[in-house]
């Protein structure tokens, strides 16, 4: 019987295998501990978190009118509902094979993080009790729906189950209406959106639109039609040759001169389209790498089976190419999310812009370290979520991994 070394023994072997290794390890550990202690000391005793507490609404929503904020609460509740539905359903389907607990290990972690966040964050921000209770309610809703669906989700008929993912695009459109108004709701001008709301809205809009656009451009670049091919090449190379900030300035300032007064779309939307067109060129190159990795025989085989070109592309070429291109594409999405901070340079109040205007408030001068730290954590969370999501997707799409074993190829 093989005795597995204990954790401690393993650590000893990794860190102190030789005298030199031991010295390096000690130096590194000492450095890390001092840095962590210094940060903790600063965060607990020296930092003045009042700037975050007083401006938490501003960081979250910008100057969104107070009397319309119920719309965003409704949207958050709907998002929690949809998340619970999808999450529960995912577990319910996976459970059909080998016996798995209702809450696998990863889910228990997520559960703990969610509960702790909803209890600690509103309290740390000193939000009023009514608002704290709203956060508890929303978290409870998410978890209850997740539990119920995980428990009885497999009993839902397959046809209905297949429709459930459709709630996401519907929710996105509904969210747009809730945020901007229309359909009987008071209009809230885009200039009043801000903070995390604007950052997420801009990046999600650009991510959703740049992906199909990028695929079309990549196909165009490999097209046999010279006009289409050269058009795509020109577009991609032009966009990749210009820094994003110059394109943003172009969109903000030149459009106003070119279009007669009032014709140009709102500056927030102008920026959103610039981001979209910019990211599309890079996504196109990522997708092209996926297309290039695919043996030419795949397309030829599909065509020789009698599939028309669009069908051959949709059913044979693209699913394989996109799987290869996925990591690079998600990398592009993450950098797109970070690129939204450039919006603060053209005077939009995204997360960074809001932070800068908060730091200009004479009441909070000199507290920039606190603000930047919170910003860094927020951005890290958003990017980490994107990264985790993409890794889970890769895992599911990978034909050789275990978790996709019970998915039919058409689903993959």
């Amino acid at each position, binding site marked *: 019987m093989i005795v597995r070394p204990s954790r401690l023994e393993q650590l000893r072997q990794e860190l102190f295998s030789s005298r030199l290794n031991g010295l390096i390890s000690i130096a590194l550990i000492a450095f890390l501990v001092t840095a962590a202690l210094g940060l903790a000391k600063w965060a607990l005793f020296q930092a003045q978190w009042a700037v975050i507490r*007083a*401006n938490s*609404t*501003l960081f979250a929503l*910008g*100057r*969104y*009118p*107070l009397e319309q904020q119920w719309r965003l609460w409704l949207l958050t509740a709907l998002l929690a509902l949809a998340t619970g539905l999808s999450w529960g359903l995912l577990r319910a389907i996976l459970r059909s094979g080998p016996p798995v607990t209702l809450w696998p290990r990863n889910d228990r972690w997520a559960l703990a993080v969610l509960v702790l966040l909803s209890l600690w964050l509103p309290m740390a921000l000193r939000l009023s009790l009514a608002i704290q209770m709203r956060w508890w309610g929303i978290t409870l809703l998410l978890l209850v729906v997740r539990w119920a669906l995980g428990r009885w989700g497999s009993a839902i008929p397959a046809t209905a189950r297949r429709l459930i993912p459709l709630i996401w695009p519907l929710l996105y459109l509904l969210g747009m209406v809730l945020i901007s108004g229309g359909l009987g709701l008071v209009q809230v*001008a885009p*200039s009043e959106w801000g903070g995390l709301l604007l950052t997420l809205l801009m990046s999600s809009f650009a991510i959703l639109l740049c992906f199909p656009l990028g695929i079309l451009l990549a196909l165009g670049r490999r097209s046999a039609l010279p006009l289409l091919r050269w058009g795509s090449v020109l577009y991609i190379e032009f966009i990749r040759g210009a820094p994003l900030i110059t394109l943003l*300035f172009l969109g*903000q*300032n030149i459009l*106003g*001169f*070119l*279009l*007669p*007064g009032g014709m140009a779309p709102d*500056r927030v939307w102008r920026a959103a389209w610039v981001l979209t067109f910019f990211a599309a060129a890079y996504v196109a190159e990522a997708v092209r790498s996926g297309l290039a990795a695919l043996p030419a025989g795949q397309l030829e085989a599909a065509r020789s089976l009698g599939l028309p070109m669009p069908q051959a592309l949709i059913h044979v070429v693209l699913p394989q190419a996109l799987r290869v291109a996925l990591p690079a594409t998600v990398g592009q999405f993450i950098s797109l999310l970070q690129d939204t901070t450039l919006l603060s*340079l*053209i*005077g*939009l*109040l995204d997360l960074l*812009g*809001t932070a*800068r*205007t*908060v*730091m*200009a*408030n*004479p*009441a909070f*001068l*000199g*507290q920039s370290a606190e603000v930047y730290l919170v910003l860094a954590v927020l951005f890290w969370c958003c990017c980490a979520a994107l990264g985790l999501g993409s890794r889970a997707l890769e895992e599911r799409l990978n034909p050789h991994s275990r978790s996709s074993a019970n998915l039919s190829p058409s689903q993959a």
Partner: protein
Amino acid sequence: MLRRLATALPLIGALALVGCASDGGGIQSQKMAAIKSRGNLICGVDGKLPGFSFVAPDGSYSGLDVDFCKATAAALLGDPAKVTYRDLSSSERFAALGSGEVDLLSRNTTMTLSRDAPGGNALAFAPTTFYDGQAVMVPASSGIQSLKDVAGKPICVETGTSTELNLADRMRELNAAYTPLKFQSGDQTYAAYLQGRCVAVTSDRSQLAAKRTGFPNPAGHILLPDVLSKEPLNPATVNSDPAWADAVRWVVYSLIEAEEIGITAANIDAKLAEAEANKNLAQLRRFFGVEGDLGKQLGLPADFVVKAVKAVGNYGEVFERNVGTGSPLKLERGVNQQWRQGGLMYSPPFL
């Protein structure tokens, strides 16, 4: 693109014609008509400048630059809340004004010849709302009273800026040797000053005051009276609409005049009642628009002064609230004092 230009060109021509035609009418202003029909004023601000424009936790804009947006909106539309603020970076501010994205630029913009001239940025500047200028800050305990006392000592300065050149020029004028300690960024400069590596640090007066509020002991640092450069900060509009520029100009003057004759946001109602009751207070009656047609000549309501002062107070109140000794910035009035107190704030007569 070309077709758009082609359709836009006749439009621009037509606009120019209308502009010429309106010269005879005197008070027809496309901008003012547009603002009135839109129902709010679009005001370009910095949005990130302590004391001048920033967003308060409740989402409202405040600051000295912002107050002039409010006063203008109050004078033209009767409501200081009818302003849409647009944050502009310094590189896009003139383009935004030129393309009509904003009606009024109230964004700590220094008035210079090339920005005013038709061959330059072609702006129309309103009167100065804040006389800024390069200053020198020293620790209060150092006993330094003026720039001369700094001679022979190290001064922290950000390199590659006009600040650095102004300092060198002035010290040469004073025939005083000094050691410039140059830094790449503002943060490094102030950090070095706080560590005591130099006895003085130099930048714009309002900048120094803002930085000082973040120091561990703000009261321990003073600004020397010497002024190393002139930075008059003025609101601006486009050159092509003189009537609108005049309206903005006289809104600014009205706040300065109100301070000179002792009218505040608190006492304006009493003063107004007094002026309405007493026919002998001719000057005050004209100022408030009780008699005469000063407002009408500008294309503004007769009581535009009353509306503006009620909205933000007189110039002294605006200054004190946002950057004055009562605010975190703790700036002295200095040259921003009324002319009777030896400052530069001077309104031409309301006649």
